[in-house]
């Protein structure tokens, strides 16, 4: 008995050390993982850090060579200048008018492209007609069409429509270009909603529009959010279409930002440039913070099960 107990005790020692060493390894592994994650996050956030600190520094301080360090004195003058005074080569009104342009452009384009995409997805999945698959295939093709490929024909079209150089013209361009993506989103979402739901609604007496509004759209909330975020980001951040299809007063914020940064009279005002760049980026950031939860949910979750 005694020897048994002794052997048990002596046995338990290596086991205990094993467990301890396992825990230690575990902890080291954790440390490595978190360490590298932290490093990568820091690396990724570095430019943002530089932007924020630079934008609140005095210009003299920047030219004195402190680029990464904390500001000695925080001042929001650069932000005010960027917003309402900075010059872009033609006028010195800051970003404000172009920010408004971008809002006037992005909001209707997001709403229209998402709306049309929703209807397309609804028709392609629930009101199939001969050739509907072909149409979907062509729309899919539109997703892979590079911006550059559509610029010339688009310019011609806008000219014919009399929308060249105008904001409505740019709204049209973004709406049309976005339909391929939004249709894909909604089609893939609606395909997982059972057809029997539509059949039940038809028997209840609902028609095309009623089924769309009362049954499909409420069930599609997550993908509506996804589509809106996607489209907002794309359109707000677009530079090429904006530069190609608008001029002067009608330019979106991205084009104006470029002009402000490129115009140099005397010393280059890095703090104003940084503030301007951040102003241009704020709305997309805002959208992600407000609706980002839904974004992940909408991308991962299928439709509601009947």
């Amino acid at each position, binding site marked *: 008995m005694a020897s048994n107990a002794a052997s048990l005790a002596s046995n338990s020692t290596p086991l205990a050390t094993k467990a301890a060493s396992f825990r230690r390894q575990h902890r080291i592994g954790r440390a490595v993982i978190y360490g590298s994650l932290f490093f990568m996050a820091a690396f990724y956030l570095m430019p943002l850090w530089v932007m924020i600190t630079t934008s609140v520094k005095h210009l003299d301080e920047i030219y004195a060579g402190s680029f990464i360090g904390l500001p000695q004195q925080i001042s929001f003058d650069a932000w005010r200048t960027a917003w309402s005074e900075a010059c872009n080569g033609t006028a010195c009104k800051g970003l404000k008018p172009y920010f408004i342009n971008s809002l006037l452009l992005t909001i209707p384009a997001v709403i229209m492209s998402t709306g049309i995409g929703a209807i397309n997805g609804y028709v392609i999945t629930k009101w199939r007609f001969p050739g509907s698959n072909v149409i979907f295939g062509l729309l899919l093709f539109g997703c892979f069409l590079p911006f550059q490929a559509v610029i010339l024909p688009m310019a011609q079209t806008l000219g014919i429509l009399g929308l060249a150089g105008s904001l409505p013209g740019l709204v049209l361009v973004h709406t049309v270009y976005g339909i391929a993506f939004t249709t894909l989103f909604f089609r893939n979402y609606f395909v997982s909603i*059972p057809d*029997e*739901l539509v*059949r*039940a*609604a*038809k*028997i*209840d*007496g*609902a028609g095309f529009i*009623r089924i769309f509004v*009362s*049954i499909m759209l*409420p*069930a599609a909330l997550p993908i509506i959010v996804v589509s809106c975020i996607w489209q907002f980001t794309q359109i707000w951040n677009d530079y090429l279409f904006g530069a190609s299809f608008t001029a002067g007063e009608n330019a979106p914020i991205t084009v104006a930002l470029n002009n402000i940064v490129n115009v140099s009279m005397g010393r280059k005002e890095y703090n104003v440039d940084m503030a301007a760049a951040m102003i241009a980026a704020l709305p997309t950031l805002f959208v992600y913070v407000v609706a980002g939860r839904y974004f992940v949910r909408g991308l991962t979750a299928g*439709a*509601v*099960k*009947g």
Partner: protein
Amino acid sequence: MSTLEIDRARKLYGELEVLKEVSISIGTGDFLVLLGPSGCGKSTLLNMIAGLEEISGGEIRIAGKVVNDLSPKDRDIAMVFQSYALYPTMTVRQNIEFGMKIRRVSQAERDKAVKTAADLLQMTHLLDRKPSQLSGGQRQRVAMGRAIVRQPKLFLFDEPLSNLDAKLRVDMRTEIKRLHARLGTTIVYVTHDQIEAMTLATRVAVMKDGVVQHLDDPQSVYDRPANVYVAKFVGSPSMNIIPARLEVEDGRPVAAIDIPGAATARLSGISLSSQAAAKYAGRSILVGIRPELFSVAGEQASQALTVNIDVVEPTGPDTLALFQAGGVEVTARVPPRAVAARTSATLAVDTGKIVLFDADNEQRID
């Protein structure tokens, strides 16, 4: 409440003929079950009655009125789907009300209809829940409630119980039967489960490959199936189909069945017209015997088979005894412990109830 006439209805998907001149006619208050294996066209036919699929040929009449070109909402029908098809973002109450709202029924009437249906189906406490918060059986109830408030001429059910577990399925089956007895509305009900068909139907249409094989009341379909296919599809364990020879002795038909290792069994007392007996005399036929037509008898019994029992399978209330006859495996339903495996037994047959089939086209011979 109304009659339903399906008159040579056809359905084509391009070249593919899914339904071939289906004709079924039922009266007011009938419970028609469309029974058949998966893919035989039951749902297609139901959807054609509902107006969800176009009718490629023939006519469908509800209450005497041709509905071929009417949209679903104008046919005065209600339907319960296999997946229940509840609107996921609406509460139970909103689900039930949806159709009435579209038909512009007043709020007061809607409330009354919802209350009546909820009382009938005992789901008053569920009215404010979303479908995702309900169990399968509860969703089934809601789907039925949605159909009931319509007060239609015709209820259509497409495999409503096949998503439920076995116990619940039996309960809901009874509930549907009770509902039918109470409301008296004509029902068309699709299923691949022959027990559901037997228990619920007043009329059964057994289908195969888009053709109605047999249309009759369930007991008749069970007792005198139109062909071998129906005989095997309805009933569990299914009817024994035993190759035999028809002989005529003293002007009476006798079925001779070869038994391995024993004398050929000769069964008389079969109900068969004299013309048929004359026509098939001396030819091979198929004898259809339900397992329960066998009974354990003494060695001297007439109308009996003396066989070697291969296997016995107790089921509780009775035991299935398996043996060889006519070159096929035959199942007999006998009392528990009446026979033992690997022994010889004499089984009498209630020959008045056996059915004969043509060996070539497998149709019933009368």
